[in-house]
């Protein structure tokens, strides 16, 4: 047993030495052609790595040219074409997109993508979800409690990027104005039922004429119809926004969140995180602070993948399909609006 183990170790060592020798020979070769490769269209990086063939990594070491995007050969000039080999060493072309210096999502972004800090001028900070359209006009999508201060804002109010907690100032960092929000109905909030209010008025009149200082108020005992915590903001200048999700790239389409689906989000506080849809068709009570609780129907629940400040994050599947809008969570769960309800109530599309 020990002899077999030693043989395996020796083989592994031998393979490692061989690989080091190959790499040592490629490094100066790459150094001699790097400038030439980097000068070609779309090339953003060059390095040494294993070649990929038919989507699978091979054992062959190669010169890897990372490009912003792959283009058909017919669209490239002969001087921009990458060679298939350099002195017998294969090359490989990998599309990586544009490479940017890392910037935390709490910073100021222009253009600003989904996944970064944003907020109404009177809140702390939440997350810019994504960009949506209505009648050809561009809007920012996030939560009501991020863009509309949990019902307390007015249309036209300043939306800052980054949000106030992250240093956003009004008007210097104003990126948009509140355009519309879906009101949240809280349990215990004033009722709009005319019958209940009339009964309360009669009782309060009787109380006043009898000298009592006690009054009745008609309230909702539960929020009956909340489906989303969502709002739209109209950008001051559409060029200040980028139709991408920070760290994930562009949204491919929408999809229905299903049980067991792997999901991911890019958020202001916890950045890029992943999870799995654990429950669908969820009715859940959500606390909004100061004793306010709202009941939401038809929600998705994933495992813990967010914290305060991540609200408003777009939730995507692994193919970058948009499935929901993150808005709440506990130590164990993340609560997500179905994107179909969000789009339907706001009348928007991607």
């Amino acid at each position, binding site marked *: 047993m020990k002899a077999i183990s030693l043989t395996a170790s020796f083989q592994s060592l031998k393979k490692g030495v061989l690989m080091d020798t190959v790499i040592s020979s490629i490094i100066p070769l790459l150094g001699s052609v790097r400038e030439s490769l980097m000068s070609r269209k779309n090339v953003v990086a060059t390095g040494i790595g294993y070649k990929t063939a038919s989507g699978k990594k091979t054992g062959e070491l190669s010169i890897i040219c990372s490009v912003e995007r792959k283009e058909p050969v017919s669209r490239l000039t002969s001087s921009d074409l990458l060679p298939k080999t350099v002195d017998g060493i294969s090359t490989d072309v990998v599309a990586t997109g544009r490479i940017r210096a890392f910037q935390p999502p709490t910073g100021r972004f222009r253009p600003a993508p989904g996944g970064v800090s944003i907020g109404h001028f009177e809140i702390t900070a939440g997350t810019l979800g994504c960009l949506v359209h209505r009648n050809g006009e561009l809007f920012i999508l996030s939560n009501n409690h991020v863009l509309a201060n949990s019902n307390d804002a007015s249309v036209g109010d300043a939306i800052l990027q980054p949000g106030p907690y992250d240093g956003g100032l009004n008007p210097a960092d104003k990126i948009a104005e509140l355009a519309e929000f879906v009101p949240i109905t809280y349990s215990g909030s004033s009722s709009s039922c005319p019958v209940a209010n009339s009964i309360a008025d009669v009782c309060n009149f009787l109380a006043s004429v009898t000298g009592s200082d006690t009054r009745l108020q008609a309230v909702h005992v539960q929020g009956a119809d909340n489906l989303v915590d969502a709002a739209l903001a109209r950008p001051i200048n559409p060029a200040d926004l980028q139709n991408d999700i920070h760290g994930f790239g562009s949204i491919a389409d929408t999809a229905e969140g299903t049980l067991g689906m792997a999901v991911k989000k890019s958020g202001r506080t916890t950045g890029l995180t992943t999870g799995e849809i654990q429950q669908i068709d969820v009715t*859940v009570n*959500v606390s909004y602070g100061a004793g306010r609780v709202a009941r939401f129907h038809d929600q998705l629940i994933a495992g813990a993948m967010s914290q305060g400040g991540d609200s408003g994050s777009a939730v995507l599947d692994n193919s970058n399909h948009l499935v929901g809008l993150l808005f709440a*969570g506990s130590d164990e769960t993340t609560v997500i609006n179905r994107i179909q309800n969000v789009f339907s109530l706001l009348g928007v599309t991607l």
Partner: protein
Amino acid sequence: MNMKTISEVKRASEPELLALPDVVSVGIGLDEKENQVIVVGLAKENERTLALIPHNLGNYPVIVKITGTSRAQ
């Protein structure tokens, strides 16, 4: 035979479930064998509430999870 779907059973049962102390959510999930179940979320352990939650609703199993209170983030 007109068997109700798990969504219909859940919706019919959730007003009573959500009226129990510390029940914060009712949804549809999967058990270890990938069977659909009704999931009741509790803010914290509550023996009296646990005793009042049935093991089955219609023909569907009910499982309880301690999820904590969900807060807007």
